């Protein structure tokens, strides 16, 4: 299969959210010696951008977005592995670490935000729910993200947001990492009060906020 055909096909697989096909194509891209960075940018990235644009226009919906993001993640990890093996470096728009704070098991809002960030070109490390303060700090040290996103649906757990921010300030990670917060228990005023860099009420706002913070850097 030609290089162009492989790139076109993997792009189409991302758009359709066909994970098994995209994984198979990624493996062929690697075995046939196609440049993995090229495949990442012109295959996966272009595919996910089409889905993101379709979503913004109202032609595509969240299930399409979620499936495409899942496909990109699976095929992307195969290409990433090859990129690392070859010693090349892929330029990233930005890494974002995201999670729901300790004591809070609410997942879905945070997952939608992480999916939308994914489709807009960010590399998202999703730590899941009930993430302890230390886990957040360790993830920042490990992944060196431009942004940390935290969610709290419950007011009882909202104080964890400020605890983590305090820890980031104490460990001097704040100069490198901006903190954004959201979730049912959080308001714009509260975000400001606890010293967050931004607040998004929904996923669309979170993406806009992330882009704004990165542009400002």
């Amino acid at each position, binding site marked *: 299969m030609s290089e162009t055909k492989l790139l076109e096909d993997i792009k189409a697989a991302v758009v359709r959210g066909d994970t098994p096909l995209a994984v198979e194509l990624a493996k062929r891209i690697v075995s046939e010696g196609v440049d993995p960075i090229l495949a990442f940018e012109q295959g996966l990235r272009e595919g996910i951008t089409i889905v993101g644009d379709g979503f913004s226009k109202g032609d595509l*919906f*969240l*299930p399409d977005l979620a499936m495409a993001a899942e496909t990109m993640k699976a095929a992307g990890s195969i290409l990433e592995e090859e990129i690392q093996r070859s010693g090349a470096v892929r330029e990233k728009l930005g890494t974002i670490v995201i999670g729901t704070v300790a004591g809070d*098991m609410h997942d879905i809002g945070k997952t*939608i935000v992480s999916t939308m960030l994914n489709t807009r070109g960010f590399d998202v490390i999703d730590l899941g729910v009930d993430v302890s303060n230390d886990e957040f700090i360790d993830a920042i040290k490990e992944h060196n993200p431009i942004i940390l996103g935290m969610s709290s649906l*419950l*007011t009882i757990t909202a104080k964890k947001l400020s605890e983590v921010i305090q820890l980031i300030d104490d460990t001097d990670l704040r100069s490198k990492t901006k903190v954004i917060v959201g979730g*049912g228990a959080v308001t714009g005023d509260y975000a400001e009060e606890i010293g967050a860099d931004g607040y998004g009420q*929904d*996923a669309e706002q979170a993406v806009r906020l992330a882009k704004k913070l990165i542009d400002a850097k």
Partner: protein
Amino acid sequence: MSLTGYTNDKPHEFLSNKEVERIHEGALEVLSKTGMVVAHDKARSLLQDAGCEVDHETERVKFPTDLVQKSIDLCPSTFEQKARNADLSLNFGGGTVYFGAFPGFTFLDLETLERHVSTVDDLARLVRLIDALPEVHTICQPTPHLSDKPPEVEMEWVLATAFRNTEKTTMGAAFGGCSKYVVQMCEVLGQQVHGSICLSSPLVIPNDQAQGIFDYAAAGHPLHMLSGPIKGASSPATMAGTLVMQTAEILGGTVLAQLVNPGVGVIYTGYSTVMDMRMGTYASGAIEVGIMGAASAQIARYYNIPSSVFFPMTDSKIPDSQAAYEKHLQNLLCALGGVNYIMPIGGLENEGTFSPAQAVIDNEVCAMIGKVLDGIKVDEERLAIELICEVGPVPGNFLVKEHTRKHWRDEYIIPQVSVREGYEAWVSGGSKGAVERAEEIAQDIMKSHEINKLPAEVDRELDLILKSAEKEKLGI
């Protein structure tokens, strides 16, 4: 005498018996094959001793079918929730339909029309408003958050404020470990709450909610076993699949409740909603919510236990047409479906806002829906055949007849909110629409409504309980 509420003896059913059975079988399969995460050590041990397969590492609990069935059989089909004023006690189950107030994170200030987080004083005023509204049979705290109390103890303060400002029965929450203190308050007050247990979808019993089951069930308070997946996000995109998951979660919680206190009252509480697939926002006012609510009542009847729904809701931000049609289509569906306890009063913006004006509007619509449930009474007196013959053709009329004066109130509502005057009279009265009228009524009630205050010594006891909660949680 307890509150009778309304009655629905002929509920509308969306599902066939066979379909209900498949939902039940599906729930059993989910519970035995996949199970739930139970984030509470003692609860897991109790479940393990009762025969559940437990992995303490992953906190996963798988429920054997015979245990689930045994737990359902232990649930009473009807039970009382005791108010401190016996006239306001509730009897859950059977064909009874009660209406309740709904909570919001904030409230819509009538003066400024802005959203605010309540202070204790704001909440007290809101509780007094719903205390005054006759269609509110029982309450959920109008605002569960307080700006002037630390979040660790805000639920305790919310409940104490509710107890202090209404004699109507109240929902008790389990968030943040408040259940222990709510139980203590109830002992002092001599009343019961319905302990609201919020299961987390998909398939989790969170730590504080499991503790709530222990606290409320052990003290004999009935439990709202509440499952609230969002269709297409935290449950399947189909109503049938969502009902399977909702049922599985409620049954999982019910098993724990019956182990803690065999025979404790459990209310099957449907809270399944919908996600807007364009924005990822909550679509709480979607009509499917009402359909699933009616189906929840049907599933509960299959188990012979009372039902409730944690809605009607709307996604509208203000009291407007959207708020009215979303909330009350759901309300009507649930009432016709025979839900025993519906919560239509006061909520806006899903659980975002409590609006006093909306509460007054909802109160009026509940009276209308009550009339729907009352239906048409047919007897010789009401058929009035003799009267029709006697009055005869025009110029005969019925206004002058004793039969009219005797019966018109039986079947009429005198609306406070709805505009019925003629156009000229409406203009000279200030051209006020339903919302403006409702705002004025709410203002008046909040200024003038008198409540039966707690005896001073009981009030002091509540203070002591609040202090002990603050001491334990905040060290002050």
